[in-house]
């Protein structure tokens, strides 16, 4: 186990937790959070409320088990960039939001803290992508790669 793998697990579990919390509650709760950010057109708000928790969950699960790790890290980066943009525009527009709504009732974070946290996670995923061989320790990617090289011999 190395630090990169620990970070991979940390980000993965964070995404699983965030996705699960939204999926187990009525989707209208997360829809309300999205509506409060006032950034998406009406029709897209519902689509985002229904789909993004599943995306978070799958990215988290695939990151933890280490399958398609490089692609998943790219997906995580895209999602984090979207979160940073959405929360930042709310701060700039001074929307009346006191907390992010990212983790439901379990964790309440003020918007600037969320931007800082997401930015740190974004930078970490860049490091992970660059060290993909070390990151792939204890992963299904590694397992399949080893299997492939054994059968090639």
């Amino acid at each position, binding site marked *: 186990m190395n630090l990169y793998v620990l970070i991979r697990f940390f980000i993965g579990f964070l995404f699983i937790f965030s996705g699960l919390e939204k999926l187990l509650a009525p989707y*209208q709760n997360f829809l309300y*959070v999205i*509506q409060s950010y006032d950034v998406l057109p009406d029709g897209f708000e519902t689509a985002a409320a229904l789909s993004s928790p599943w995306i978070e*969950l*799958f990215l988290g699960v695939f990151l933890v088990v280490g399958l398609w790790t490089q692609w998943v890290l790219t997906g995580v980066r895209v999602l984090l960039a979207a979160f940073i943009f959405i929360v930042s525009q709310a701060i700039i527009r001074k929307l*009346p939001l006191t*907390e992010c*709504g990212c983790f439901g009732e379990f964790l309440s974070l003020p918007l600037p803290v969320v931007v800082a946290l997401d930015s740190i996670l974004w930078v970490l995923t860049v490091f992970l992508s660059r060290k993909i061989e070390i990151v792939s320790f204890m992963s299904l990617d590694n397992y399949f790669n080893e299997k*492939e090289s054994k059968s090639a011999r």
Partner: protein
Amino acid sequence: MTSKNSQFSNKVMTTWVIVVVCVIAVLGSKQFCESARTRSQSVESRVKGDEGAPVRIMEFMDFQCPACASGALYLKQFMVEHPRAVRLEMKYFPLPMHRHGMESARYAECASRQGKFWLFHDYLVERQTQWKDLIDARPAFMLMARDAAMDTKQLEVCLRDKSIDAVILKDKAEGKKLAVTSTPSYFVNGETAVGKSQLETKLKALLNDSKK
């Protein structure tokens, strides 16, 4: 090459297995959570509207929340325009982030015990901007109680009564069981709507359905 292809198919197969397991686990847990969400009996003093109304709304609100005030004013107007359409029941859900959330609910519950709940409720939401930023909002609540022609001596006794807190916390616990996390949260004929915008959409849809 064949080995590479076979490993790729194994990876794709594993991906599908993970996706299916996750979907089954989440949908199963969601079903379990939803079946555990039960509702309690209504408190008559906090119910208004026609008893036979086709639309039943249960609202969880915090009197200090601006979105709740906006939702309450919208609902009041809607009920004036469609007097036989809605039966509304109000439940307390004071949020810890609001300094006067609990205190305003205490005053409202005492108003309820004097049969003045809806009048006091309307004062609280209509005058919210005048009291929500005060350090001590109790004088403002007292003024509203006088405007609602409440017995202020009885009110003072009521405010010392610990059972008031129990009523409010019971409502809040019920809200939590129903997965309420934000205010205002509405249950329109049992379906969740969070915030005024979702409520408006639901009520418009129900009105259109009833016209068909």
